[in-house]
Each structure stands twice: as C-alpha cells, then as structure tokens.
C-alpha cells in the first residue's frame, strides 16, 4: 500500500500549516539537537523549544524531579539560556531543520512578554510563538495570568500586537473553567490554544519528612494526566473557533488519536520523549496506519470526529 495516499497536513492557525500533526512539547525536547541521533527531526510536525525568557534563568535548586505513578513531577523552574543566547547559540541549528520551529516564551511581567515577542519577531526561521501563561513553577506574575481570564486576555493581546507571527496560547489546567480561559485567549487574538500544561502536584519524602522537591510543589505530567487533558481539550474545542492543540500524557498513537477525535488539530508529545525518544516517529506512523486502515485520506476530517451530536 502506498503511504502517500494519506495526507497528514494540517492548519494550526495564523496560516501555519504543518506536514503532520505530531509536535514535541516545550521543555521536554531540549533545543532539538539533543534528539538528532534518536529521531528524525526533519519529519516532525514542529519542534516546540524549551521556554525562553528575556534573561537567562538558573532554574530551581535540586531536587527538581520525582517519579510518580505513571507520571512525574518537575520543578525545573524554567531554567533556560535566555533570548540572546537562544538566538545566537540555538537558533542557527534549529533553522537548519526542515520542520517548523515554535518558540515557547515566558516572562514575569506583561512587559517582558512583549519584549520577547518583539525580539523573536525580528528573527528568521521561527514559525510561531507559543505563549506560556501557565507556569506553576514561577512564583510571581506568571501564575495569575494562567488562572484569570481577564489577565490572560490582556497578556495575549499585548503579545499579539508585538508580533505578526502565528500566536499559540498555552493554557494551564489548574482552573475550574478551561473553556473560559480558551475564550479569553481567542478574544485576545490567539491563532490557536494549546493545552494542557502540567497539573500542580507534590510528593513527600517520608524518611526525611519533607517535600521531595526543593520547590515544594511541581508540575505533574505523563500518562497519569491524560484523562484530564483530554477532557479539557474536548471542552476547549467546544468553547473556541480557533484550532486546539492537545497536550498531556500522549505516549502512543492511540493517545494521539483520542485527542484528535476530541477536537485537537494537532498534538504535542512531552514526557514520553524522556522514556521513548523515538516515540514521536511511532506516533506519526500510527496515525498514518489508522487512517489507511479506516480509509481516511484527509487528516483534517478526523479532527473532532468523536464529538458527533456535541
């Protein structure tokens, strides 16, 4: 059978078309190069790089990670090289890849976000910006944006004005009404929303009788959170008209298909990159096989197909 009958291309908003819907999630794929001998970077739907801030950040003190049942907690604290070093040291390599590059950004203030977006706007080779409004590890600023629709909207529209690149807003799951957050991003001018970021969790060392993570709490990711992520993607897809990008525990092609059928136009693989660095390839071929076996040629017809009466 000819693989080429399956058209996996998909539009994720703001004119950005991907060759296939499988991306890597921010913070779980380094700056791409770390995986060059383990997976075919060129054939990825897109690479989303580790969140970049205006200045370099050292991140949180150790311990930063701990394994949990079918998941992990991280409190990396958004360690990153900062905008300048990113552009100088990381971007040239990434620009050389055939797949689109999406830069995830984070700041402590609206001003910082605006500067970042404006700075990236100047650069060649960036296909979109993903706005992380939901980092649970940063203690000032950031958190509030992620749980209050008004602030999220304000932040989105500020960044929107600073860049002409397609803008994806990445939502936090630590809210009671994810639909309202998605609508706020849409109203602020986002071209797409991506979700979910990590759930806030913690672990305690019963021998030392103190929290395992130096930061006390951390972000829960991995297969454990998939049911929550899928439900939120379903609700977000109901709430907005822009594309929704599904994230959260996706580890197999079957997981990816669940998100797509729930209404995701594309998906991001996060924690699974750690334990299965070739997983993104397997997910892509699994989706292709599913389409072939079900005689589906156009990927986009699968988006939201489980919503039926909904």
């Amino acid at each position, binding site marked *: 059978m000819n693989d080429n009958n399956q058209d996996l291309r998909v539009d994720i908003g703001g004119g950005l078309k991907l060759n296939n819907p499988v991306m890597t999630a921010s913070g779980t794929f380094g700056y791409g190069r770390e995986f060059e001998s383990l997976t075919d970077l060129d054939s990825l739907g897109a690479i989303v790089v580790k969140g970049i801030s205006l200045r370099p950040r050292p*991140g949180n003190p150790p311990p930063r*990670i701990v*394994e949990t049942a079918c998941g992990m907690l991280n409190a990396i604290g958004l360690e990153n090289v900062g905008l300048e070093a990113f552009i100088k040291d990381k971007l040239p390599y990434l620009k050389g890849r055939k797949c689109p590059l999406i830069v995830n950004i984070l700041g402590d203030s609206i001003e910082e976000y605006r500067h970042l977006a404006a700075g990236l706007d100047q650069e060649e080779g960036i296909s979109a910006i993903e706005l992380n409004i939901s980092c649970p590890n940063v203690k000032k600023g950031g958190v509030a944006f992620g749980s209050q629709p008004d602030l999220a909207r304000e932040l989105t529209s500020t960044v929107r004005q600073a860049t002409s690149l397609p803008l994806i807003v990445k939502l936090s799951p630590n809210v009671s009404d994810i639909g309202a957050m998605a609508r706020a991003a849409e109203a602020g001018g986002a071209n797409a929303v991506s979700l979910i970021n990590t759930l806030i969790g913690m672990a305690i060392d019963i021998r030392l009788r103190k929290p395992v993570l130096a930061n006390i709490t951390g972000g829960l990711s991995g297969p454990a959170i998939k049911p929550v992520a899928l439900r939120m993607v379903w609700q977000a897809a109901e709430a907005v008209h822009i594309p929704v990008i599904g994230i959260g525990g996706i580890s197999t092609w079957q997981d990816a298909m669940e998100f797509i059928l729930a209404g995701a136009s594309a998906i991001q693989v996060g924690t699974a990159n750690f334990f299965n660095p070739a997983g993104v390839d397997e997910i892509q071929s699994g989706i292709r096989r599913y389409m072939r076996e079900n005689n589906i040629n156009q990927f986009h017809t699968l988006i939201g197909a489980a919503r039926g009466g909904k």
Partner: protein
Amino acid sequence: MIQAKRHITLNESLGADIYRLSIQAPEIAAAAQAGQFIMVKTGMGFDPLLRRPFSIHQAEGDEIQILFKRLGKGTTLLSKLEAGQQLDILGPLGNAFTLQEGPCCLIGGGMGVAPLLFLAQTMRSRGTTPHILLGARNKAELMAFLPAFQALDGSLRYATDDGSMGQRGFIIEALPALLAEDDKAKWQVYSCGPYPMMRAVAAICQHGWPCQVSMETMMACGISACLGCTITARNTNRKGGKYLHVCQDGPVFTADQIEWKS
C-alpha cells in the same frame, strides 16, 4: 548514542540482591568510556515510567555489562529478566573519567564500584596499575563484586561496615594512609559511592590531590532534555548558572566543582 532493544545475554544473581546483566550492544560497547552510563527501560507499562540510569560496569567485544542492586520497582523488574529477552537501552551517555598521569587510587562503595571496574580495566590496558579500595556493608555484598576486581592484578583493599570481611568500618579510613605512602607524588583519586563517602573523599583530597567523583541524581531523560538532574556547583560557571547537570556535565566531576551539602 543509540536507543534500541537489544538481547540480554546474562542476568546473574550475585547475592545481596545484586545482579550482573550483560547486553549485546556492539555500538555502545565500541563507543563506551569508563564513567559513562546507559538508561534502561525496566518494564513494558507506564509504571515505572522513566528509564533508570546504570553505569557501564564492563564493555568487551559486542557486550556491555551493568551491575545493579534490587532496590525498588525498576530494579525488581530488571532482576526478573532472563538471557534471550530484550531490553530497551539508551547510551552511552554522559562524560567519562579523565585519565591523568601519576599513581592513582580508585575508591568505591556499594553499587558505586560499578564504573570503577571498567575504569580499572581501562587503566590496566594502558599500563597503569591502580590502587583499589572497596567498601561494602557486609561480606555478602562485598562478595557480589569483589571477585571481578580480584581478577585484575594490582593492589586491592576492602572493608565492610560490620567487619564481616576485610577491615571493619569505612574504607575511606584507609585513604589518608595510602596517599601518605607516597606523599610527594601527585595522586589521582577516582571515587564513586554513597554521597557521604564521596564527600569525605573530597574533603581528604582538597589538601592537594586531584579527585574525580561520579555523582548520582534522579534523571528523567539522560540526554540533557529535561534539565532535571541538577546538582549545585561550588562556583557560578562560565554560563552564569550555578547548577551542574549530571547527565551532561557529568556524571564525573572534579570534587572541587561541587557544593557539598552537609
């Protein structure tokens, strides 16, 4: 660096919950240097989720070997695997011990001895004969790994915490005397073992002996993608950060790179 499913050729129980597991992995065996490690997927489901890091204990011909202790879920699953089954491995990872001129001493405790065998073999193949100091909790644990070191020629001393074999107490107690034996020489000390042991080795060595230590932390990826495996550096590094990443900057560090916690 490769990631692949490879055949297990041996999984031998050595007593004291310690196992020796060999894997057919020619690419890793050819590339591996003493001090490097591999990440192993221990089960098929999502529990445990993450790969587990293990030092390369030996690399010969087409095979690599790890030495591990059964501690929790992952190592329990590993201990049940049999020759002929496949194991999903990723490696070789991390930096390696840097071989330096001069007399050298390898000091290891518990499972920390794992990379030291490979290091000692490498030294022997380059004509150096290291002095080896090994510590274990008791005779059973010591006997799990001692024979492999006895097969090398050279000086070998050992201690057990409970005195059931060799000297009683911590093997580091033997270090100052050894260094003093030839106190004009520039001794190179290489250490891997429990944190307090390496801290004590570092404290002894700070009086003039170069010392390399192999550190452990929780690791999610092993390939510098998660930034989870940090330890605190003594000095702010040239990148402006104060953290070291064990899977990338290590696992081997010079003892003076590290901010030792009390």
